[in-house]
């Protein structure tokens, strides 16, 4: 039995096409369609229900120590109101999940995890708690709405004053008021575009959703589904758990070096990654040069020899072409390498290109 987010009725009323995803009934697209929704986010603004995401809290004198041991990034030098991305590894150095950490103060953090991994993550986190810390899974009480796109700031400014609008990327404000509703606002997102993510109580979510949609209408704001969320993140080359990484892929192989602090004294997975030594494979970007679309789980070949597989791929509406991400053996990871993807028995020419495919100006 799939769960509904507090915004389910809003999606149905807007004509959203509902599909099961990560245990929830979610809109994959609205009548506007994936391409229009994608382009709205790149050029104007889009609104996403991401209430299925999980949120957990760490509080207490050992909260920071717990996060530093549990996660690959280093949280020591964070300031209050800062947000930081990190993989969470298992003992073999594979990825349990990737997540973002919000620092309220040095003894209080919120961690936002993938919907599909929430229960697994909570088990893993609980099993590794130590010292003086309180842990709580608050996912079921919290709704999340993402307002994304270049017009997001102007839209939010119509409903909030400056004290509720985080000014810097990957920063947040814990006590905000948007349209009279108490919420947490961060300047974060999963689209490669400027935008905000807004956390509020479940019961306030429908009002917030309607208010934002109404307020942003003349600035091109439209509701967007999971379809556009996926094409946007892929165009921006943001990794997705279960695709670019899983419990058999290390964050270094996934190209997430910036969030793996090997100089940190200790963290789960560090020893295993050190023992593995030099990388033998790595995540790359592929531009499809031939005709066709390359999707996930396609074999990638060089001179007829398999050198890896694709992890995600689709048509990227803003760039106007087909792109994919792939896990390839060294040395075929070099930018400019010509490879072929085998799609339903047909070989399609691709080229390794630099990531991200799209970067906002």
């Amino acid at each position, binding site marked *: 039995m799939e769960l509904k987010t507090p915004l389910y009725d809003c999606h149905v009323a807007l004509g959203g096409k509902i599909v099961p995803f990560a245990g929830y009934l979610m809109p994959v697209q609205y009548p506007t369609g*994936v391409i*229009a929704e994608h382009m709205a986010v790149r050029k104007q603004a889009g609104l996403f229900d991401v209430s299925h995401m999980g949120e957990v809290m760490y509080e207490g004198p050992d909260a920071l120590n717990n996060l530093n041991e549990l996660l690959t990034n280093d949280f020591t030098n964070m300031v209050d109101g800062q947000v930081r991305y990190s993989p969470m590894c298992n003992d073999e150095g594979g990825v349990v999940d990737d997540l973002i950490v919000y620092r309220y103060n040095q003894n209080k953090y919120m961690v936002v995890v993938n919907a599909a991994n929430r229960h697994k993550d909570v088990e893993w986190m609980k099993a590794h708690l130590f010292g003086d810390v309180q842990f709580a899974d608050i996912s079921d009480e919290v709704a999340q709405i993402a307002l994304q796109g270049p017009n997001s700031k102007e839209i939010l400014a119509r409903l909030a004053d400056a004290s509720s609008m985080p000014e810097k990327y990957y920063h947040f404000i814990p006590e905000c008021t948007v349209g009279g509703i108490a919420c947490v606002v961060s300047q974060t997102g999963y689209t490669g575009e400027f935008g905000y993510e807004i956390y509020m109580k479940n019961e306030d979510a429908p009002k917030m959703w309607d208010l934002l949609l109404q307020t942003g209408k003349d600035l091109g704001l439209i509701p967007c589904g999971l*379809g556009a969320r996926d094409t946007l993140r892929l165009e921006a080359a943001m990794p997705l758990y279960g695709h670019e990484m899983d419990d058999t892929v290390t964050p270094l192989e996934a190209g997430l070096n910036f969030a793996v602090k090997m100089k940190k004294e200790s963290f789960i997975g560090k020893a295993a990654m050190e023992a593995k030594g030099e990388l033998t494979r790595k995540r790359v970007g592929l531009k499809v040069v031939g005709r*066709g*679309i390359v999707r996930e789980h396609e074999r990638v070949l060089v001179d007829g020899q398999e050198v890896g597989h694709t992890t995600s791929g*689709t*048509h990227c*509406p803003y760039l106007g072409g*087909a792109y994919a991400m792939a896990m390839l053996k060294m040395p075929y990871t070099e930018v400019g390498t010509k490879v072929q993807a085998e799609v339903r028995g047909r070989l399609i020419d691709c080229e390794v290109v630099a990531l991200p495919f799209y970067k906002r100006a």
Partner: protein
Amino acid sequence: MNHPQELKYTRSHEWVKMVDDTTALVGLTDYAQHSLGDLVFVNLPMVGDPVTKEEAFGDVESVKAVSDVFSPFDGEVSKVNEELLDEPGKINADPYGAWLIEVSNISGQEELLSAEDYEKVCQEEE
């Protein structure tokens, strides 16, 4: 959903427009384009290729998925709508104007569905 009376249909959501007794245009129905969503790629056969009833002659891809297109009859491809290769979105915008292929020397078209019967197929799938 719009399914014109003068056309014939298949259970796999292709439409057929007879040009003469043994030649027909084949396209995707309004129901099909709506279910698939925004189309971004079309893979079509070449002129002269044989097609076989109920076998795939090409595929169309939306942002999210790929779907085969099946031949309603046996025959030989006599024209390909190459315009669609560059602008697959035309199938979404005008499903009955955006024919995919023309097939000649056709046989086996007797079992095609009327618009009414096709509507029933769509309702069953809803």
